[in-house]
């Protein structure tokens, strides 16, 4: 069902932001449920739920958006999107606040994999996969990290060997979020072992569920099990699955990392849904509730901690605005997304620490008949995830110092060395 308000377009034929916003304002309440009305256990909004039904719900919501004309706002029209600007997306994000959205499709499908395919994929990849994702028919995933290589993504040892029209993959990938529920993956594999490490890689857009692929879910400290590890045993992938050039996989991965930094930091124009940063979010309210429950609302120290946590959230929003403007006007390099990523990691860590401090002993335990105060403790246990997922903050600091400030590159013992001569640890 489309909005009844008429779209108002400018001279280039593009609908104005205001017009788009008004249509969204009308369409949203008629088609999306309010978060406040959702059953508490549905949890579709929260990315921690790994329930299969949550994924089905996300696909259905995406289909609703697509049918309503609010899907793929910044994606080109020829690939199933609306071909609008980030200002339109921002307006939509503001209007949709408080409503149910397929949030789990943002990362990596729409903010990382989609833009990478847009930048580097073949025409066929774009027509087929972007359109399918925007319709809610396809979920994408990254097969990038490996158990043995950590931040050193170019050190991949998953092997892809050409065999006529196909490649045969063997090896293992890890930290692929939601792989079990995904359809296609961007998978980085080594096709040349005699070349130095960055030059021997190839990216494949491969089917996830197929013979030879075994997926295991990884349980995390906070109980989540979204992340997966994949094992490849003679997996056959057609040559048409190659994204970019054979041997040119690192160029594709670099675009993925660029988009990932933006996505993690909150600067991606492809992110659809309300953002938490820059407004008095649920986080601040939760902290205020916490100190009221523990009777510390009048304690100046507790009050300062709440203000500090709140300020970090507000400043995060300001930084996203600044970096986005800086990159748009090319006054900042494209790597500036690392600033947002680093701020996010550091501030989320500090906020988790503050919450623990405010909760005090309550964070160590929960009564079955009371609120789950232990949840604050569990979030604290898991807090480093915000400094690890989507590229570690260490890598962000390398990028900022080397690419933005122009300082010397860190010595890499594997640079310009044939990959089969590089030393590996465990």
């Amino acid at each position, binding site marked *: 069902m489309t909005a009844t308000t008429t779209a108002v377009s400018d001279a280039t034929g593009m609908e104005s932001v205001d017009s788009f916003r008004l249509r969204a304002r009308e369409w949203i309440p008629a088609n999306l449920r309010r978060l406040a009305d959702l059953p508490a256990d549905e949890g579709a909004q929260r990315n921690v739920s790994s329930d299969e039904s949550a994924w089905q719900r996300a696909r259905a919501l995406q289909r609703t958006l697509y049918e309503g004309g609010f899907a793929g706002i910044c994606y080109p029209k020829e690939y199933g999107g609306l071909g609008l600007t980030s200002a339109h997306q921002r307006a939509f994000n503001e209007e949709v606040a408080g409503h149910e959205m397929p949030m789990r499709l943002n990362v990596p499908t729409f903010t990382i994999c989609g833009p990478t395919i847009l930048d580097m994929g073949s025409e066929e990849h774009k027509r087929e996969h972007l359109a399918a994702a925007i319709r809610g028919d396809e979920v994408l995933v990254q097969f990038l*990290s490996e158990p043995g*290589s*950590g*931040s*050193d993504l170019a*050190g991949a040892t998953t092997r892809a060997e050409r065999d006529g029209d196909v490649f045969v993959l063997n090896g293992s990938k*890890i*930290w692929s979020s939601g792989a079990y529920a995904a359809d296609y993956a961007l998978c980085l594999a080594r096709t040349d072992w005699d070349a130095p490490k960055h030059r021997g890689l190839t990216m494949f857009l491969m089917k996830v569920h197929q013979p030879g692929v075994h997926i295991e879910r*990884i*349980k*995390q*400290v*906070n109980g989540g099990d979204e*992340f997966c590890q994949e094992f490849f045993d003679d997996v056959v992938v057609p040559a048409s699955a190659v994204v970019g050039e054979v041997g040119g996989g690192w160029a594709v991965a670099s675009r993925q990392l660029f988009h990932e930094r933006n996505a993690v930091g909150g600067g991606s124009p492809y992110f659809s849904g309300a953002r938490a940063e820059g407004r008095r979010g649920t986080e601040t309210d939760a902290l205020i509730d916490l100190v009221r*429950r*523990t*009777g510390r609302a009048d304690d100046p*120290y507790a009050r300062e901690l709440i203000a500090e946590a709140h300020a970090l959230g507000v400043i995060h929003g300001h930084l996203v605005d600044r970096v986005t403007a800086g990159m748009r006007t090319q006054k900042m390099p494209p790597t500036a997304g690392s600033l947002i990523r680093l701020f996010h990691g550091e501030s989320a*860590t500090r906020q988790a620490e503050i919450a*623990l*401090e405010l*909760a*005090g*002993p*309550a*964070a*160590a*335990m*929960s*009564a*079955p*008949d009371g609120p789950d105060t*232990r949840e604050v*403790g*569990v979030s*604290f*246990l*898991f*807090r*480093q*995830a915000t*400094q*690890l*997922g989507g590229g*570690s*903050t*260490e890598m962000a*600091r390398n990028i900022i110092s080397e690419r933005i400030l122009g300082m010397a590159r*860190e*010595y*890499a*013992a*594997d*640079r310009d*060395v044939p990959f089969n001569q*590089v*030393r*590996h*640890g*465990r």
Partner: protein
Amino acid sequence: MRFELTADQRLLQTATADYLEKSAPLGVIRALHDEGRTFDRDTWRRGAELGWTSLVVPEETGGGSVSGEGVVDATVIAEQFGRGCAPGPLAVVNVVAAALAEAAGADRHAGLLGRLLDGSMVAAWACCAPGRGWDPEAGAIEARPDGDGYVLDGTHDGVEHGGDADAFLVLAHTPEGLSQFVVERDADGVSVLPLESLDMVRGFARVDYAGVRVPATALVGAAGGAAAAVERQFQLAVVLQCAELVGVVERVLEFTRQWMFDRYSFGRPLASYQELKHRMADMTLWSESGQATMAAAARAVQERRADAGELVSVAKSYLGQRATDIIQDCVQLHGGLGVTWEHDIHIYLRRATVNRLMWGTPSAHRRRIADLLNV
């Protein structure tokens, strides 16, 4: 590493380490957790034979240290408990045993004390108001004189190993002032609610007292005269907790350092990156400082010095914060593995976090220090 242990203390340390490694490796702790259990009674009983329960109790009441310095001995055990995130009610049993042994008229409780010492019973110290940290005035429930006994009403929260306890040492106000009572788990009107804990195996409980009648002989020491004993028990609990934190941190730094030598990134071991090296240097410093201040606090508590309260709070304010700082940074150094259930580091992080929060947060201990300094 502790530098100046006596030969007997080193024996105690090695025996405990060996026994814990055999009886309660992390796999056993995971299994206990999966079964919803906190510790194994048999394991505990055999631990008691090694001295776990009796070090801070004088010989004349059935205990005995190995070095003549029972508090220091007990920290040697607690450190090993930390290294293994071991299960078992170490701190609370020692605290209650010391309280029973040191109180005037201790022979009234000789039966319970004996069974604590031989490991056949477990007791917990119930002293915190619901949702609140350490504050003995607020934590004491009401004990109303009634005939030749008392009637207890109220609730204690966060009772360490309360779910396992056969008896409680209960902090209460009588008309005479702060007092402590022994209350049996099975007494009429006592109900115990085990709470879901952040630690794998260290349980906490809520204890409700609804008109619980106890005889005057249930008193530990004199009615109204418990304040000094309570402070002493608190110091003991905190210093054992600090020693446990020292052990936790030491072990985590050991395996993280090894990981940094073994793990390569960009063709180099992590241990070759200056920024990571400097973080390890900082963490080593904090660990050493924590060991130093814990040892000083233990000695002060041992010697019942006037500054023991201050030193205990100095140690906890530092270690409570630094232990979690260190382990979180070690999680970071482990990368994604560090936040998985499969990797053991979260077991240590849980223990350190629970120890940071209980028996006074770092912030609460800083306030105690300010009070003691008469700011």
